[in-house]
């Protein structure tokens, strides 16, 4: 098994990094645009998360396969081309098999192309690692991103409509905070969750 200099398994390292240490959105503050846009309810958030996992893994595989031939001038161009292709494919699949979700997500699916998380992983991991490690890294980072989206979406949906996945979670007498479904709620929830995470991190250290 491949190992890092200090003896730890590279694969578990990658998983730990993606799921906690450098989790996108919360730790790395990347990919914030779709975060605010699709987290009004949990279903769009999950759909977006799955799309990002798909694009991330596919693009990592392709960049990893190409890594020997990368030249400084065309690097970013190649990354962008790969990512754009896989995002288009993901969008086509969504429009074919989940038209309602595709309408709801709208232009935010193609915006995955400029989601910094994907270019960041292509640059930091896939362009200098083997295919298997790139896949693991893609899965871990994608999972981290999805978890972050779902945390925000759960808060916003429960407080905003009292329901989660169509199941009434809060009693009907609870006045739903309609603002949670609107941009206000998005920014405020994100800000407070980030603050909470900062607080927890500081308490630990």
């Amino acid at each position: 098994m491949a190992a890092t200099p200090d003896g730890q398994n590279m694969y578990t390292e990658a998983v730990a990094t993606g799921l906690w240490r450098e989790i996108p959105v919360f730790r790395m503050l990347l990919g914030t645009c779709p975060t605010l846009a699709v987290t009004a309810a949990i279903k769009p958030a999950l759909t977006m998360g799955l799309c990002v996992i798909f694009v991330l893994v596919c693009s990592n595989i392709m960049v990893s396969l190409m890594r020997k031939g990368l030249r400084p001038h065309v690097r970013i161009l190649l990354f962008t081309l790969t990512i754009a292709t896989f995002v288009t494919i993901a969008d086509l699949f969504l429009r074919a098999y989940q038209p309602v979700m595709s309408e709801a997500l709208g232009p935010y699916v193609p915006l995955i192309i400029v989601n910094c998380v994907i270019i960041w992983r292509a640059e930091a991991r896939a362009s200098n690692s083997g295919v298997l490690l790139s896949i693991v890294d893609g899965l871990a980072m994608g999972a981290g991103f999805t978890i972050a989206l779902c945390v925000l979406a759960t808060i916003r949906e429960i407080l905003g409509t009292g329901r989660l996945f169509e199941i009434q979670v809060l009693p009907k007498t609870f006045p739903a905070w309609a603002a949670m479904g609107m941009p206000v709620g998005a920014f405020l929830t994100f800000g407070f969750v980030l603050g909470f995470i900062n607080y927890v991190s500081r308490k630990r250290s």
Partner: protein
Amino acid sequence: MLDSLKRFVRESWLLVVASVLCGLLLAATNAALGPRIEVNKALKLTSLAGGLLPAAQAFVPLSSPVEVKGLDGKTESAVVFKATTDDTVVGWVFKVVGSGFADKIELVVAVDASFSKLAGYDVVTSSETPGFGDQIKDAYYRNQFAGAPVGQFSLVGLGAANERDVDSTIVAISGATISSTAVVQAMNHYLPQLKDQLQQKGLIGHGSNP
């Protein structure tokens, strides 16, 4: 000359190969999924319409285009479907657009076969305020149009009329005047034009209408 060409090829061969590969991937996916996407697009309107006209078995798009004037005065081609059961027309379904509070509101409207009564409407797309303008999707407002006579609708405030009366007087949603007005305006703007166009095409009779 040959040297610079060799350098060019060395720098960019991967880009060219990758472009070709990506192009092939895109073309293949598009060919495989394209038909399904087209079907989905047509299905969107008719699946909502099925809820308004449960008796209809099929929704057939009109063979000749229907031209109407949009709210901005521009001529546009209207989306009209004929709702049929065993080849008899049971109603007409079309899309109307209104300008709501936040953005455009798209409605699918169904009328009966003689274009004299509304079967109702459903919201295709809208970005109205949740809890307020969003109520145009709810039963309170939609029921007022189900069975209402086709004609000019007038909007009144809460309490000025009984919303359970199925007539041309529509009671607005409290706190969502603009969204309520948008729906009524869209109906008033498009219904007469569409009725006129269908009558001209001989698809519905010139019935007794005030």
